[in-house]
């Protein structure tokens, strides 16, 4: 683990004193390697290491605290702070229904998390409506319908309509039927697909979502930055859902995206079942990234 590697680096340091630039440089090399192995984007790592260096050099080696522990402590604090100090809850619009739009790359977990959000909101006493706006993927609508049955939530569909029209009709149906939340599932798309990104922008203009949640697979590597920036520049996302954290990926994409997009990670997906949704804990994510 990083803690062990740093222990080795500081083995030769004994007695009190301050951490010199040379001591810190070697420790930072280990931290850099650890973060790259954890899939943090290399530009984000560069900036992060700069911040650590500033805090670490000249730090007095405190009584009873090994210098390795001190550097770890600084890294852990900085990481936790960057990942988002406090939890960011879902926000609801003053005027019902609150529209929550899910977007992201192909296979990230949007359809699954639409269902998980519906279940969570129902348990909170809300009355959500799922809207199936993926008209491209074979059986995508059927998939959301099956998910809707699993979480006892109605699913709105509209044959032969484009996604913008489906979204609008879905909101109209929510108003008619008295649903206070609309959860809009969209098709997976590449952030470089101009036509499909424009489609998301049209949906946004049409139904003015209160929340635009970017759904990201926790095992995403270096490209997490470009992907998140692409969606953010097009839509001004309000938050993220990080999925498949029940895997063993270190999840460095969380740090990459948070530092570049600045929006909070609101939820994490920890399984395939509809109850596998948790609130994001920055401190837990920090220790996971550090390994």
């Amino acid at each position, binding site marked *: 683990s990083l803690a062990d590697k740093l222990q080795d680096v500081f083995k030769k340091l004994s007695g009190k004193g301050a951490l010199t630039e040379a001591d810190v440089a070697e420790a930072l090399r280990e931290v850099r*390697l650890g973060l*790259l*192995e*954890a*899939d943090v984007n*290399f530009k984000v790592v560069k900036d992060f290491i700069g911040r650590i260096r500033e805090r670490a050099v000249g730090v007095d080696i405190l009584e009873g605290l090994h210098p390795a522990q001190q550097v770890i402590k600084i890294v852990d604090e900085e990481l936790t702070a960057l990942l988002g100090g406090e939890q960011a809850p879902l926000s609801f619009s003053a005027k019902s229904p609150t529209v929550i739009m899910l977007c992201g*790359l*192909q*296979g*990230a*977990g949007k*359809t699954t998390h639409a269902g998980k959000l519906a279940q969570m909101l129902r348990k909170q006493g809300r009355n959500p409506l799922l809207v199936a706006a993926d008209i*491209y*993927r*074979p*059986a*995508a609508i*059927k*998939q959301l*319908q*099956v*998910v809707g049955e*699993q979480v006892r939530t109605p699913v709105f569909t509209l044959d032969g309509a484009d996604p913008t029209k489906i979204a609008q009709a879905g909101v109209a149906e929510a108003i008619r039927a008295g649903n206070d939340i609309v959860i809009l599932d969209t098709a997976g798309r*590449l*952030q*470089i697909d101009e036509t499909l990104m424009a489609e998301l922008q049209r949906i946004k203009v049409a139904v003015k979502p209160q929340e635009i949640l970017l759904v990201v*697979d926790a*095992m*995403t*590597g*270096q*490209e*997490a930055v*470009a*992907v998140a920036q692409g969606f953010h520049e097009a839509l001004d996302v309000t938050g993220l859902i990080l999925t*498949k954290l*029940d*895997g*063993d*990926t*270190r999840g*460095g*994409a969380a740090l990459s995206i948070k530092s570049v997009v600045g929006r909070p990670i609101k939820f994490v997906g920890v399984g*395939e079942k509809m109850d596998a949704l948790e609130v994001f804990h920055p401190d837990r994510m920090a220790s996971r990234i550090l390994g």
Partner: protein
Amino acid sequence: FTGRGKIDEELLEELEEALIGADLNIHTTMRALDELRAMVADKRLKDATDVTDHLKRFLWDTLMAGGASPVLSVAPSAPTVYLIVGVNGVGKTTSVAKLAYKLQREGKRVVLAAADTFRAAAVEQLALWGERVGVEVVKGRDGADPAAVVFDAIQAAKARKADYLLIDTAGRLHNKSHLMEELKKINRVVMRELGGRSADETLLVLDATTGQNAVNQAREFKSAVSITGLILAKLDGTARGGIVITIKDELNVPIKLIGTGEKPGDMEYFDAQTFIDALFE
């Protein structure tokens, strides 16, 4: 990265960033750059073009080591069976459909097995693809044992005298032992029904956007059902999938196919040179 520019530490840093940015493993990258630095020190490399060419050669040697080839194995007697596996959402079902389309266009008779009996509308998704591509899909009852569907599909493929049987399986995270056990059971059924030989190819589908975790996936799937090749999907996105170089280097699993989109024709046999050139674009 080319031209008669001088070789300096800045060039090497730029190359390092290109490789890391493409999701090459940091240790693979460091080894490659150390080799370059040694050659520069011995004056064996003259300029920036030389350095880049040598780096590409290093990567090419890694990918082609052991005579790696994208050619897919064919069974001594029909049907040739391919088992498609991987973690959730990477592109297995779509890749099965594309491979079926490719083989069919080569004049082969293909049957598909819808062995994902767990995920919502998984069978429907493959069935629709089957209709679209024009191949038969063998399904089981809702929630049936995937091994039972595989058994039925092998019998059907033999009865129809199909040239190929492609088996689509449910996404599963490699750290979930009960799911990996389920996969081993599917594999045992295949071996039993094929008279003791395993599937002619067991292909692990990887998402090109995945980082270092792809190595864990390859390692775990390989130890569970011995993977014979990789399908690298979603290469039409901006991610480069460089991690497959480390997978080839450490686990000796060759890349067979790449997915370049969501249409039936969006699949190609892996070409190492094209792949490597793209890492530096």
